[in-house]
């Protein structure tokens, strides 16, 4: 197969375009904007994953103020089903079905140097794409079973508003949820398998 640089470039753009559909903006009645990922959707309900810190203020101040805006600009009210401030994860419920869900990748066997992309809403701009590589894989202490949780460090450029958005691999699958919880010049993401376990465990219920 011939691999021209233009073909790689095209593949890049196609992959990002395909991933955009399942990425939403989190809106909270004038409060800060973040990003979310449509994780599940059946006939009548959908679930969105985002960062706990994105929705923390919103529901606290106004239980009905939480809104998500889809890539095709539809607006839905959302409810906070669960949140975990240590993993910086929140799960939102929507009373609407049939939304395009994200493809979830395998984050248990990542390699340093792998290509990654972030899509989010930095500084309120919708659907901004940044690219980089996995810079490192680490472990942080959490007050949960096992006492630690793995995290992904990358060199993708993140800004406020990227929080809760996906870190995508070269195949366009979600391998992490961007959290930026450590600040500094390192972008940090919670691996998707940790998110899946957290949802499956249901200890948030």
């Amino acid at each position, binding site marked *: *197969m011939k*691999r021209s640089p233009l*073909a*790689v470039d*095209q*593949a*890049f753009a*196609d*992959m990002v375009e*395909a991933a955009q559909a399942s990425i939403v903006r989190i809106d909270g009645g004038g409060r800060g904007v973040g990003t979310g990922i449509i994780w599940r959707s059946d006939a009548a309900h959908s679930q969105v994953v985002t960062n706990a810190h994105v929705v923390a203020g919103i529901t606290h101040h106004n239980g009905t103020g939480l809104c998500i805006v889809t890539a095709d600009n539809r607006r839905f009210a959302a409810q906070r089903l669960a949140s975990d401030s240590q993993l910086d994860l929140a799960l939102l419920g929507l009373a609407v079905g049939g939304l395009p869900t994200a493809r979830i990748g395998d984050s248990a066997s990542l*390699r*340093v*140097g*792998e*290509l990654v992309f972030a899509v989010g809403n930095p500084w309120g701009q919708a659907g901004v794409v940044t*690219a*980089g*590589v*996995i*810079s*490192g*894989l*680490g472990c942080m202490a959490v007050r949960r079973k096992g006492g630690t949780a793995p995290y992904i*460090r990358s*060199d993708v450029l993140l800004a406020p508003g990227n929080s809760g958005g996906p870190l995508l*691999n*070269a*195949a*366009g699958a979600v391998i992490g949820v961007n959290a930026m919880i450590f600040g500094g*010049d*390192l972008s940090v993401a919670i691996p998707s398998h940790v998110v899946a376990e957290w949802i499956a465990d249901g200890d948030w219920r």
Partner: protein
Amino acid sequence: MDISMLSAFSNQMADAVERVAKSLVMVNGRARQPATGIAYADDIVLTADHVLERENNLTVQTHDDRVLGAQIIGRDASTDLAVLRVQGLGVPLATAAAGARAGQLALAVGRPSPDGVMASLGVVSKVGSSLRIGRSSAILERYIQTDAIPYPGFSGGALVDVTGAVFGLLTTGLVRGAAMVIPMDIALKVASALTKQGYVKRGYLGIVSQQVRLPPAQRSDAQEYGLLIVRVEENSPAERGGLLIGDILLAVEGQPINDADDLMAVLHGDRVGKPVAVRVSRGGIAQTLTVVVGQKS
């Protein structure tokens, strides 16, 4: 759409990191943040000079978690390079990449902690020439700049191409905070001098000069300026050779001297201890003196 192509590209970069990772060691030479070193010959590690804040109790940690003692063979603050000997190192050696070109993809790779290597992606931003470095006014004849993030502890690490071959040694110690890369061929030349004699030969005359425009009669196509000697150090090679304040330096060994960089370039290490023909204009009359080049301390 062809996602497999992107995945193949992604795998190749991860392979590049994996390949160089085994040649990178963590260098413990200062109190806080450890740095990185590149294994380039048997039992020999190249690192940045500024990360060695002590001379003794140096250790390195390998990719397979062995902690080994290291001794400094030689170090050069001007180029920010140091060579360590590590008995029983036994790791794969790094391979040098062919010359870098601006725009090429590049990965900065370091081993700043025992948790494994770290990497960041960027491009070769610039391949520059004649970078004046440090207070010694030494000249780095070629250097590479990159926009890949130099994470803390990346000094002494490698900038590699997409195959994992090493463009050069990364350091933030040459230009404060900026990620500068010393091309591997130059780094190895310095390393070879450090291994041989523990220091780098740099020629020196012992003058202070300033650039002046030559009178029309003395100008040529190759030369519009010369160096007016405003000070001659005591007991310096220049004084012994008979150079005087007020002389205008025109040429050394036939090479026209338009500015201080021209002079630095001609006073390279191979000339140390050897006589050179120094052409000056004294009172408007050109004459040639012989000066034995000294070693800059």
